[in-house]
């Protein structure tokens, strides 16, 4: 019984690091953890090498069964099937498969469809090598009060925080955050502040009511959301949209700071050009997050200043913004020193040194393919995985529509190619979000 020793240390012990073993209650020394760096930090973590990558894959006309599917790749280094597809589970039909996220106990993977707002809950703990479909939620729009396009699935204790992208009234960008219990029932809906109803938040001039990603920093009791565009735009042919001046006016230009505990929006920041993925720094004293703007190709820093005020500012360009390289996914190193940035149009991965968060500097770049979207890295940063698909109707056409997952080793100076899975040749579809799995999560 060690209760007294814990109590003597008081609240200081509650100070936790993301490195803490969350799931394993053993007092044994912690093995080096190697999980991907962009998960909710309050979730069970993989100790050791990730074993599987779950790729939420869009069905593609003319490829295989043309349906969305969860594809499992084997990335066990000593496996005979390393770098190969070992399972594929089709959900039937195309739903604009996009992002996915584990529950806090990491037993289930929630994967959303941005088109019809279907949510698929996969059991990834019974057999991590072969996920099964546990539950399908088809009434998200109805239950949420009209939110369309479940995007980010972010684990909070016992529940999922889901960012919507659109609404059922006009398929525009006005939308909300939606909370679901892990069991699959709707809990509550929180609409983004917009100029007509700021919900008590400051920054009315900037507000647009749009949403994209959601990430929390409980240590500061804050939550950040970013902003993209509504159903009409994200579902539209990309070439058509770029030529539609009306459509191009309908992109998000805000990051919103929320009180995490009360779910009340506090401040809307002007961040023009569609800020997408948000990543909080990990360090226990690092009160800042990064986002990148897709259209204006900038890295933005959201930070708490010396006076305790939260601020947003652009801190770096990504590539040549005048060519619209379209930065999409980002991945922050667990030491807060590096940030991977994928740009879709030129298919390039860029590494930024962010040790001074106010002045990121590009230190490396490599063309990965004709197009590039998601990037996931292991906790130790030594393995980096890339995938290609952005949105069904935004992906490149013809020969440039490469669809793959590529695995690389990163030695600090160079990406070294390990494997490629060609998702078209394998009859799978468009490779999108990657999440890591491992048996070690569910056994000693």
């Amino acid at each position, binding site marked *: 019984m060690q209760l007294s020793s814990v109590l003597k240390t008081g609240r200081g012990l509650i100070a936790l690091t993301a490195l803490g073993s969350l799931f394993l209650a053993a007092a044994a020394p912690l093995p080096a953890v190697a999980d991907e760096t962009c998960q909710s930090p309050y979730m069970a973590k993989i100790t050791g090498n990730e074993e599987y990558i779950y790729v939420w894959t869009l069905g593609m006309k003319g490829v295989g069964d043309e349906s969305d599917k969860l594809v499992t790749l084997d990335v066990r280094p000593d496996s005979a099937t390393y770098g190969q597809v070992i399972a594929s589970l089709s959900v039937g*039909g*195309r*739903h*604009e498969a996009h992002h996915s996220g584990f529950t806090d106990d990491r037993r289930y993977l929630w994967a959303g469809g941005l*088109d*019809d707002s279907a949510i698929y809950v996969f059991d990834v703990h019974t057999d991590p090598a072969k996920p099964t479909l546990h539950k399908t939620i*088809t*009434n998200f*729009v*109805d239950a949420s009060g*009209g939110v*369309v396009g479940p995007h980010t699935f972010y684990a909070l204790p016992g529940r999922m925080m889901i960012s919507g992208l659109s609404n*059922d*009234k*006009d*398929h*525009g960008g006005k939308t909300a955050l939606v909370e679901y219990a892990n069991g699959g029932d709707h809990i509550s809906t929180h609409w983004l502040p917009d100029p007509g109803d700021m919900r008590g938040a400051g920054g009315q001039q900037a507000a647009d009511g749009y949403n994209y990603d959601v990430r929390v920093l409980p240590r500061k009791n804050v939550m950040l959301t970013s902003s993209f565009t*509504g*159903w*009409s735009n*994200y*579902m*539209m*042919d*990309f*070439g*058509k949209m*770029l*030529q*539609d*001046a*009306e*459509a*191009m*006016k*309908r*992109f998000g*230009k805000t990051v919103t700071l929320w009180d995490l505990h009360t779910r009340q929006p506090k401040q809307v920041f002007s961040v*023009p*050009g569609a800020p997408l993925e948000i990543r909080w720094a990990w360090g226990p004293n690092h009160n800042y997050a990064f986002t990148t*703007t897709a*259209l*204006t190709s900038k890295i933005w820093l959201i930070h708490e200043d010396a006076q305790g005020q939260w601020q947003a500012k652009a801190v770096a360009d990504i590539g040549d*913004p*005048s*060519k*619209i390289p379209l930065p999409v996914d980002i991945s922050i190193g667990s030491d807060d020193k590096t940030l991977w940035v994928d740009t879709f*149009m030129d298919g390039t991965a860029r590494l930024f040194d962010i040790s001074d968060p106010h002045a990121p500097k590009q230190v490396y770049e490599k063309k990965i393919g004709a197009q590039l979207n998601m990037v996931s890295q292991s906790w130790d940063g030594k393995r980096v995985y890339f995938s290609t698909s952005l949105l*069904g*109707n*935004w*992906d*490149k*056409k013809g020969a*440039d529509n490469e669809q793959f997952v590529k695995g690389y080793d990163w030695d600090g100076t160079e990406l070294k190619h390990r494997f490629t899975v060609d998702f078209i040749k394998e009859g799978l579809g468009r490779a999108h979000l990657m999440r890591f799995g491992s048996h070690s999560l569910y056994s000693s």
Partner: protein
Amino acid sequence: MPALRLLLALLLWSGTAGAADVATPSIVTEWDHRALARIDQPPFGLPFVVPQPGDNPATVEKIALGRKLFFDRRLSHNGTMSCAMCHVPEQGFTQHELATPVGVEGRTVRRNAPTVLNVAYQRVLFHDARDDSLETQIFGPLLAHAEMANPSVGTVLATIRRAPDYAGLFEAAFGEPVNVRNLGQAIAAWERTLLSANAPFDRWRFGGERDAVSAAVKRGFNVFRGKGACTACHFVGGDDALFTDHEVHDTGIGFHNERERARNRNPVPVEIAPGVTVPLDRAAVEAVGEAPQKDLGRLEVTDDPDDLYRFKTPGLRNVALTAPYMHDGSLRTLEAVIDFYDRGGFPSPNRDPVLQPLHLTDGEKADLLAFLRSLTGDNIADLIADARSAPVGNVTD
């Protein structure tokens, strides 16, 4: 008088509501009685009799049912598109946010969504005038692959039969279960009530209220019917006006835009942030874009070469609310439309001879704009509230 009739209708309705058979759920509300009253006595400036087919006279039950159907996203192949997703009440019952809509799975619709306001008076429907009945029009979008994409009419009927919230509603409105005929009739019944006039122009021109419009509007109307020759196609009657001849014309815009799309290699101006536009290499745009689809206009219906690039004359009521303009949404503002016609349209081998350069002065253009803005009906907020009295239909199981 309308108020009295409305009151009577409400009294009658509330008097019978209590006696309604509990097995026949009613979704009829005050909004339906007000909508029916609009058909009985349309807003001032519209023709006094609202055309209705003899076999589909409006009733409150049909109107309520039609509205519910109009807002039901389940009526598309994958539960995403209702009629109202492209005919958005708050956006002039059309769509401001896109030049041309996107349908199921984001498929490209070639043509701008026309407003549903005052559609009751339209003798022909669609930009290529391919239908002449609101009752049958609905099957176009319901079945179009790029719109609501239902694989068959039967699928739509089955969807409605399966939905518990429709139980008894068709029976109450038509005395029979849902079928291909009463489905179109119900939606048409509500659409027909979306009447909006009594605009400042109406009160001045037809009502004799001198101060209902500004001097600029009056001058603009003179340009409209005089130097501008707009009334050659956008008819104005002596007692009312619909601002359309219900015919198709080639203004040159179809010919011009198709040709430009094929040969223009200039960079595409892309607005990447409010007020910040960058020229994007056309090859980069084409790399992420599907091949363009041609739009041949009325010829697609008739195969008559004379109908190449001919499109229907739209009515102009509430035109200030229905941007962007033209069959392809290619003109974003009324100013751009006025400039287009001032030029005499675009050169085209088949261009209607009525289109000639107008040589309008800046003052005349401003007056014309003021006139067009005087055509907005006085009950738009009411019609939006009417529309939103129906819940959006979504998948519930």
